Structure formats: C-alpha cells, structure tokens
C-alpha cells in the first residue's frame, strides 16, 4: 500500500502531462528510411517510446534488464540473465509480438522471444505498443507489440564507440561499434560479448533459519555481431543489408525446492535481411526480405535429456504508402512467410507452414489534422486456407488547442498454434494438429493531456482497455497424455496511466515520470469450472513505476522505483506471492571533448536490498552493483 501512496503523491504532483504515446524521436531526413507502418497507421493506440538516452545508459545490459520496471510491461523473470516471460495487458508471453526492423522474431516453436538474451547495445529505437494489433502485425499481437529497430544513418563520418562494464557476480560486458557513413554509403558494425557467473547470494526462505546461500548453475555467456550497410541510389532510393548473429550459452539454475540443476541451454541465431526503399512525393515503396534462423539445444544430463530444435523463416514483404488527396493515406502490403521447424520431438522430424497476408490501412484527417480516423484490414492465407479477416479501426481528436487528445481503437486479434502445439511428439505429450487459432478482440480508449510553458512541461495519459480471447491453447492431460486443447476464454481489462513533469533551469534539469497499470485478467471460461472468474496466475493486478531524473550539466542521477502487486501462483487463487518493491539508481557522468566523449556510469540494482521472488522459489539477488565506461570518437563533431 505504501507504494501506491508514494505513486499517488507523485502523480498528483505531476498533475497533468504529456502524451507519452506520441513518439518523441525525430527521424532524420537524410536517412531515407521509410517509417514502419506502425507510426502513421496505428491511430488511437497507446504506446511508449523508450527514451533513447535510457537505451544508451543500458548498453551493457539486456533488453530485459533495461525494460524491467517499464510502465505496463510485466517481466516474469525466473532468474537474472535467465528465462523471462514478457506480459502486456495481462496476457501470456506468446501474446506479445516482438519485431525487429519490421520482422517478427517470435519463435515458430513456442511463440516467444526472450528479452534477456537481446543486448540493448544492438537496439537504437524501441517502442512498446499496448493492445492487440492483429491487422497490423498478424498472429500473436494480442496483448501488445514490442518494436525494436537498429538504425543506419547517413553523412555522419567515422564514429568509433567502445564500452566495457563489470558488475557483481562476475558480470563482464564489452561492446564495440564502428560506423562510417557519407552521403552515399553507411555501414555499422557492432560486436559484443557478455558473461556472468551469476553466483549471487540469496536468503533461502525454504530452510529453517533462512541461511544465505549461493546460486549455482546460473552462468551465462553470449557473443554477438550486428552488421548493417546501406547505399543510397540517387536521392530517393536506398538499399540496405542487415545481419545479426548471436550465440548464447546459459545454465538453468535450480529452484529453492530442488536439490541441484544440471540443465543448460544453448542457442544460436542468425537473422539477415535485405531492404529496398524508395521515398516519393505520392508514394513510399519498400520491398524487404529476411531469413531468420534459430538453433536451440536444451540439455539436462541428470534426466538424460538433450533436445535440439531448428527453425527457419523466410519473410518477404512489399509495401506501398500512398499519399492521397484530401489528407488521406493508404497503406497496402503483401507479406509471405515460409517457416520450417525441425526437431526429433516434432512429428515427422520436420514441419512447414506457408502464410501469405494481404493488409491494407486507410487513414484520413481533417484539414487542420485535429481529427484522424483509420480503418485496417488483414487477410491471411495459411496453407491455402483463408483465415478470418482481421479488421481494426482507430480515431484521434485533438481538442483545446491540441492540448488534449482523445483516442480509441478496436481490433480483432488472433494467434496461430505454434509448431510445438501442433506437432510435438513424445510419449506422454502429443501436439494436436486439429487446434484452431486463438481469436478475440481488443479495444481501448483514452486521453492525453499535455502542456508546456517556458519552464515547465507536463502531461498525463489515461487509457482503459479490454481484451477478450477465446479458444486459448492450453496443454492439459487427457488420460495420461498431455495435449494442447482450445479450452479457456480469458477476459482482460484494466486501466493504464502515465504522468510526467519536467522543468529546466540554468544547468539543471529535472524530470519525473510515473505510471500505473491495473489489470484484471480472468478466466471467463475455464477447464476447471470452479476457477471461473479467477485472476490468471503470475499476472499482477497492480503495477506501478516512478522515475526521477536530475541532471546538472553532464552529471545525471536517475532513480526508478518499481512496485509489483501480489501475483497468484495457483489458478484456484488459493496461494500467491506477496507484492514487492525495488529501486534502481543510476549515476552517469559524461566528459565531452571536441571530437570525443567519455561516459562513466554506476548502477545499483535492488537498492533497498529487497528479498522477493518474481517466480515462486526462484531467488533474486540482493543489492548489487554495476559500473561501466564508454568512449566515443567521431571525426566530424
């Protein structure tokens, strides 16, 4: 309760505020990079663009570490650096679409992508969109979408950035980024490595006297390379290549209630793509193709288990954005995704799926562009069968001298069964080839208020949402064989608020942001009749975050406070984990020279030394520290 009081005060203090949902990154004109369709055609959606400084401050961390404590996103973290399930608006991990440069990276086998494995150093822009966007991104965009982008810029000369960090429990991270660009060429190469023993101490609450113990079998090491090259063809066209290779090797630690663990997971992924874009007066065109490859090995010697899975996706997409008369725009696109997955545990050892989608969005504004409406449609053809058509609508009105935005949208949503759901083959667990897609609808409405004076800037955003999903795919024992079935219906609804307040004077800058989400995500139809109406397990009802930033010249302090309400651990809601609060403090100092810059930072995680569990019997580290240095050299600045 104390957490709410603090946040309530913060929010009252912030009083009214900026629409965080309006993207505040300005795309550079010389980049010739056509905006992804999300920007101009998702009308009336709430989303948050992650502050690019925050991304830079986290260059030595994973995306999961960077986003932990972000408003509205709940990360079900099993252990630091380990497994993480992402949840938006009370929905499951496979209900969040995760896209990189416009390509969906959700695994075709389990429908997830682990944010703990993605280095923040590889990502330049990040946006979290809450709510369903089936018409835009297709299958899986139910609770929300996370849009990541690694950008290439032109005309910036030669830039070399090096960073190195260290932290508690043997954490070591190094990264290097070399980019060169002139008017015609742009190339950026990034490499990184990260390792950690993760042998942190924790209090074992399951043993009498709560002794302090050390985590075992939790080490991780990672290597990665990201290459992007772009070439301008004349003044309007650009051709780009990108490739991302990464290798992760991690141990899976035991829980407090198991004696030991020998489980280990290794994965390797390669994502490459080619994109051609043309920016025109009447139309923007883009054609892109990607080849996404994942290899994963999970081994546990104590139970004689070793399982290797592979998947490949070839994605081809063509998209046109037309600027029509009378302030209207039309987006037309065609996407083909061909996926294969192979594993000894997959029926016939290999399976494939071919999906073709035609999508269109139309948006129209009035003359002053104070009113905008959009209609979208998506039609998918899955293995020669038409899926139900997915429509979406949205609106935005700017009133009171554009100080207030009223917005809303609605969309049908769906999720195709994963390859594991369809084709898993093992003696005690079988996939079910007769599964139907999960389907439902998502809607939201809200307002944003923003105002700016000479000294102050403040804003407030409030959104109410509802998502209903039926035919949820759940694994369930039929006889003594586990099988996935379309069984439950989940109704998730709630409210999300953000507020911020900012002030500058002389060399001082001060900014405070606060957010709260209240989510009731309940079983509307349940396999166990007595569980109907119960909150889903590991889905907090209350979540709140507040961040304060104080900067004086080149010295900056950031403090983030995060409160997560209690989470049920059993579906009959008879047991739960208590609410917890954590604090993170970041101090940064940047030394700037004519053509170089050095940045030092210290980060303190779990500042208040809170002893809590995100997942039952999975301990988290007590207070711990990180420090890092980064150097940037540029021949033009």
């Amino acid at each position, binding site marked *: 309760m104390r957490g709410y009081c603090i946040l309530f005060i913060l929010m009252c203090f912030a*009083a009214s505020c900026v629409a965080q949902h309006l993207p505040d990154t300005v795309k550079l004109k010389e980049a010739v990079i056509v905006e992804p369709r999300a920007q101009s055609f998702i009308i009336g959606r709430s989303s948050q663009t992650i502050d690019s400084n925050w991304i830079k401050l986290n260059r030595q961390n994973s995306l999961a570490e960077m986003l932990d404590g972000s408003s509205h996103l709940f990360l079900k973290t099993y252990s630091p650096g380990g497994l993480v399930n992402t949840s938006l608006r009370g929905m499951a991990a496979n209900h969040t679409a995760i896209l990189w440069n416009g390509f969906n990276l959700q695994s075709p086998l389990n429908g997830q992508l682990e944010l703990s494995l993605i280095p923040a150093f590889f990502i330049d822009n990040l946006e979290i969109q809450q709510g369903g966007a089936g018409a835009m991104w297709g299958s899986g965009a139910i609770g929300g979408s996370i849009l990541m982008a690694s950008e290439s810029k032109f005309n910036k000369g030669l830039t070399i950035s090096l960073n190195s960090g260290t932290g508690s429990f043997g954490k070591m991270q190094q990264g290097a980024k070399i980019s060169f660009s002139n008017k015609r060429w742009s190339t950026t190469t990034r490499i990184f490595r990260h390792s950690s023993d993760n042998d942190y101490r924790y209090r074992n609450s399951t043993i009498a006297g709560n002794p302090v113990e050390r985590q075992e079998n939790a080490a991780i090491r990672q290597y990665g390379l990201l290459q992007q090259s772009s070439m301008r063809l004349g003044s309007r066209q650009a051709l780009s290549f990108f490739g991302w290779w990464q290798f992760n090797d991690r141990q899976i630690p035991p829980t407090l209630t198991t004696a030991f663990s020998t489980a280990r997971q290794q994965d390797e992924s390669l994502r490459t793509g080619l994109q051609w874009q043309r920016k025109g007066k009447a139309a923007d065109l883009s054609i892109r193709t990607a080849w996404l490859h994942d290899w994963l090995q999970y081994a546990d*010697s104590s139970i*004689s288990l070793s399982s290797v899975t592979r998947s490949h996706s070839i994605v081809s997409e063509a998209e046109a954005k037309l600027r029509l008369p009378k302030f209207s725009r039309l987006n037309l696109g065609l996407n083909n995704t061909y996926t294969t997955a192979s594993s000894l545990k997959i029926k016939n050892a290999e399976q494939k799926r071919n999906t073709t989608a035609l999508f269109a969005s139309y948006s129209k504004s009035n003359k002053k562009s104070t009113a905008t409406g959009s209609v979208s449609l998506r039609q998918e053809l899955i293995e020669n069968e038409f899926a139900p058509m997915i429509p979406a609508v949205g609106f935005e009105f700017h009133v009171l001298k554009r100080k207030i935005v009223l917005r809303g949208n609605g969309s049908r949503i769906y999720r195709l069964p994963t390859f594991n759901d369809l084709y898993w083959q*093992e003696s005690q667990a079988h996939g079910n080839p007769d599964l139907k897609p999960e389907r439902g609808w998502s809607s939201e409405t809200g307002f944003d208020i923003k105002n700016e004076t000479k000294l102050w800037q403040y804003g407030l955003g409030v959104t109410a949402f509802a998502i209903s999903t039926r035919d949820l795919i759940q694994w369930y024992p039929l006889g*003594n064989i586990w099988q996935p079935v379309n069984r439950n219906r989940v109704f998730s609804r709630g409210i999300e608020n953000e507020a911020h307040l900012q002030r500058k004077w002389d060399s001082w800058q001060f900014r405070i942001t606060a957010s709260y989400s209240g989510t009731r995500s309940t079983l509307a139809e349940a396999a166990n009749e007595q569980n109907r109406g119960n909150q889903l397990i590991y889905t907090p009802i209350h979540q709140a975050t507040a961040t304060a930033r104080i900067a004086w010249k080149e010295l900056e302090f950031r403090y983030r406070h995060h409160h997560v309400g209690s989470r049920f651990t059993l*579906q009959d809601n008879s047991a739960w984990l208590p609410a917890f609060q954590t604090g993170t403090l970041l101090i940064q100092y940047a030394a700037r020279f004519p053509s170089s810059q050095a940045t030092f930072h210290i980060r303190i995680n779990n500042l208040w030394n809170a002893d809590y569990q995100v997942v039952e019997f999975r301990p988290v580290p007590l207070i711990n520290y990180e420090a890092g240095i980064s150097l940037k050299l540029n021949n033009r600045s």
Partner: protein
Amino acid sequence: MKTILLYFLIFLALASCKEKDDMTPAVEQAEFPQGIFVVNEGLFQSGTGSITYFNTERGETWVNVFSEVNQRPLGNVVQSMAIHHNKAYIVVNNAGKAEVVNLEDFKSEGAIDGLVLPRVFLGISNDKGYISQWGAGGMNGSVQVVNLETMQVEKSVSAGSGTDYLMMHNNHVLALNGGGFGNDSTMTVIDPETDAVLQTIQLQPNPRSAVTDNDGKLWILCGGRYDFMDPDKDSPGHLLRLHPQTYVIELDLEFPSQKIHPDKLVMNKAGDEMYFLYGSGIYSHPVSGTNLDLQPLVNRTFYSLGYDRVSETITAADAGDFISKGWVIRYLETGSVLDSFKAGVIPVNFVFNY
C-alpha cells in the same frame, strides 16, 4: 484539480480490489488419529509439494500439514510417503531427499540426503530402510540401504532402469524397475537380511505396481513400453499374475491399446477384486478373471488411485488443471461417490493411517 480528483477516484477503485484472504488457517493441534495422508507433488517447475491430512471420522481436512508445522516448504516433486515405526518418510524426488517426520506432531527430525531421483521408501527393521531411486539420468536405478538411526545411506543395491515400486513379499523385497526415463521390464528380488540380489525376474515392459490377492498370488501391472521419440512404437500394458514363490508368470493379460498405459494397481480388502487407472477411468478386474473386461467403474480422469481397507473405499485423486489444488474423491466399491475433499497441488499418492 479535476485530474487529481480523477486520480484519487481511480486509485480508490483499484486499491479496493480486494484480495482473497483465506490462506492462513489456524495451526491445528497436530494429531493424526485415523485418516488419510495425501501426498501432493506440487507444481512441477518451481513448486513445492505438500502433505494433506484427511480425518475420516470427522471429515476434516488439513491441506498443508508439513509446511505449517515445520514453517518451510517440503521440496520439489514430492513422490510418496511411508509410515514406519511411528515415523513418516516423505520422498522428495527433485530435491533428492527423504524427509523424516515424527508422526505424533509431524515435526521434521531430519532428512536422508544425497539421493538421486528417489521414489519410494520401504521400512525393513528398526534401524534399516530401503529407498528406491531412478538414479543418474533416470536410468541407473538402485535400492539405497539406509541406516535409520544415522539417516545415512550405507549401501546401494544396483537394480534395473527406473527402480520405483517397493514391496515386502514373503521375506523378500520386490523392486519393480519401472523404466524411469527409459524402459525396463524386470523385477529385482532382494534379500532384506543381506541386501543381496536373489533373482532378476523378466516381466512385461515397465512394471508399475504390485499387489497380492486372497490366494497369496502376486499381481503386477506393467504400463507398457514408452517410445520417447515415436508414440506409435509404444507397446500395450500387461496385467500379470505370478506364482508367489517361484515368480513364474501364470497369467498374462494384454491391454488393447498400445498408447494408453495402465497404472496404479490396488487390491480390495477381500483380496478378490483389483482396481487400476486406464486412460480416463477407473477399471476393475476380479482375481478370478482370465481376460480383461474393460468396462469403466468410474468415468473420470484421475491422476492417482488408492484403496482404503478400513472404510473399504476406492480413493482417487483428480489433479484438475495441474495448476490448482486437486480433489480427492472416495468411491464405494460399487462406483458410487462416498465423499470428496480438497487436497494440495497434484495429488499423487495416499497413505491410509489407522
């Protein structure tokens, strides 16, 4: 000001979303006169098992006996419990231990540690017990000989793959090698005096449970072979009748489906009727039957089955969606329901304590 008011209202509305508050029952007087202990596995990945006590006379349930008495969780994947000389030995699979509790008050007296995927405890004498374990990789099954005074493993008797069910039979210990993470089709016969392996008997694939009938005959239920890669290569289960001394198979009844694996064989009090789980039902078989008549006695999917010789009831556990507390339903031998009670998460075994 209006915004502040709005916030205030929102917060009031949300803060008043009440959370259920019925989790902490008053710790009862630990006393276990007559009743059923239910062994609950607990959530598989990161859970804890529990022991539920059901007082058959008063019809009262105490869902979490161990953790409430001892103020700590029992451990991950609780497998079975056995009572021996007024102590209960609770075998906890993934935690690699057997908790020893005093049956008077259920207080922990220590634990037998260092076991590898242990399954079942069997008391031999005052100071000696056997614990079957699947062993490393779930394939190197053995029977661990435990000194009950020091709670130390003193010897390991190597058996087959996935050594599981243990039973005392005519001064022999029978250890069924249930396959573990592989397959096996043998039973190891051990002399409990010398811990020597007397014989290894060839049965059908993956023997799971054994009972004796009113004629002294030994009945063994084999689940059938699992092919972990291809379910089409599974083999059907078998119900076997063996000569009690020579262990020669006298009757071999094969189940019709190769994909449904029977489990949890129990014998009634009279020793003339057996019950077991097969697919989504409880089935029975008379000891006089020479072929399997597969008519379900109860049509419902259960995770576990037991037989209470005092109340002469079939006790079955329904694990529900496996992420909620399960139910135990007691049936008369006719198949009609006597009563039911809520147990812990994934009820897997019963101990009838009278």
